């Protein structure tokens, strides 16, 4: 059955916006009834079994991670899906994770400037917010101590959606970018999710649509 999937090689051959300057992940591109959709798997986003051990130098006690650069041409609506994989009970903490979007910016011909790692309202526009609570205690086996190899692998997950130009819920800012962009995740409750204590794995995927 045809899914109208455009072969990646053909897609890259289109006279798009000089993607060569971006060296971006294009995602799995599909066109259904004239609407373009792109899916970026955890492999494509680069948030793939990412262990939260990278401290945020601009917010001591917290952590952050970046996605790959993603080619979202033609898309202005997004849903980001986040999954954490907990290997032991101590990983099952309550956490608030903020999602920011940013673009690489053209300067002189041939120069693409990376976003500053510092967080500024327009340098990294907030687009989403995750609140992942402690798992249902009825499903926690209290017998197994943290680190026990028999501890079952658990997941917690959530999703956030935004439109380019829409007001981000809970903020007073317009969110989202069209074109090429990268995502940044940051733990908002730094004290509760510090970089040494959060060793669960993160997986992030993105669906973008026109």
């Amino acid at each position: 059955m045809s899914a109208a999937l455009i072969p990646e090689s053909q897609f890259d051959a289109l006279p798009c916006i000089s993607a060569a300057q971006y060296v971006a992940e294009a995602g799995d591109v599909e066109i259904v009834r004239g609407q373009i959709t792109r899916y970026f798997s955890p492999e494509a986003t680069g948030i793939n079994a990412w262990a939260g051990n990278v401290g945020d130098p601009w917010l001591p006690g917290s952590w952050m991670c970046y996605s790959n650069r993603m080619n979202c041409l033609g898309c202005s609506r997004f849903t980001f899906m986040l999954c954490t994989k907990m290997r032991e009970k101590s990983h099952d903490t309550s956490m608030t994770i903020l999602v920011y979007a940013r673009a690489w910016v053209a300067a002189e011909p041939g120069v693409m400037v990376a976003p500053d790692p510092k967080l500024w309202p327009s340098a990294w526009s907030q687009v989403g917010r995750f609140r992942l609570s402690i798992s249902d205690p009825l499903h926690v086996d209290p017998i197994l101590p943290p680190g026990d190899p028999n501890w079952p692998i658990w997941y917690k997950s959530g999703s956030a959606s935004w439109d380019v130009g829409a007001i981000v819920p809970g903020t007073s800012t317009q969110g989202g970018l069209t074109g090429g962009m990268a995502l940044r995740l940051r733990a908002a409750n730094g004290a509760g999710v510090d970089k040494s204590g959060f060793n669960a794995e993160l997986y992030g995927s993105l669906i973008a649509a026109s």
Partner: protein
Amino acid sequence: MSPFTGAVPVNQMNSLPLLSTSDLAFGGTVSVIGGSINRYFSPAQTGINGQANNLNTADADLSGPGLGLSTVSNLLDVRGCNRFSALVAIKMPAADEDVTYSLNLRIAVPCQADLTSGIQPRFGTYGTTAWPLVAAFVIGVSSAGAFPAYKTGAQGWMVGGQYPAGTQTGTLGFIYLWFNFANTGVHKDAVMFASLYATS
């Protein structure tokens, strides 16, 4: 038989004479992907292209608030598009120019009247409908270790969206971009680059 999905082959779409690029405006790099039109305007096309002292041009009226330094783009053809992302890079020659930058981005359109040419929006003064505010940039002190260095920002908006201050944003057709700095600490030796994504 495969179900019909209505998808037009992309190569065929791209061969259609969709938009005739105006002689008056920059059309950007246009691509059609799955029926969605995309335009990219590089700094060379916006005209905000790192020319020396390009931050204090085209602003004859300094009487209004925050108009000390500003720059205006070329006329841009954004027909077919209603969602936008403006990207800015500011190159600072020296460390003492690395202050917090507050930029407001306004847009305007030339309007038709009884003259042969469009009525241009007046530079130097603005109002909520003459130059609607579509985005604001706040770019703090960077983490640059050596100069010259860049700092960057990006903001998105859509036609009919709302700026947090309460005004509706965006417009269809042809637009100018006007960046002006709300703070006075920006040195005129800094140069600015602006690019724009527009999509349907």
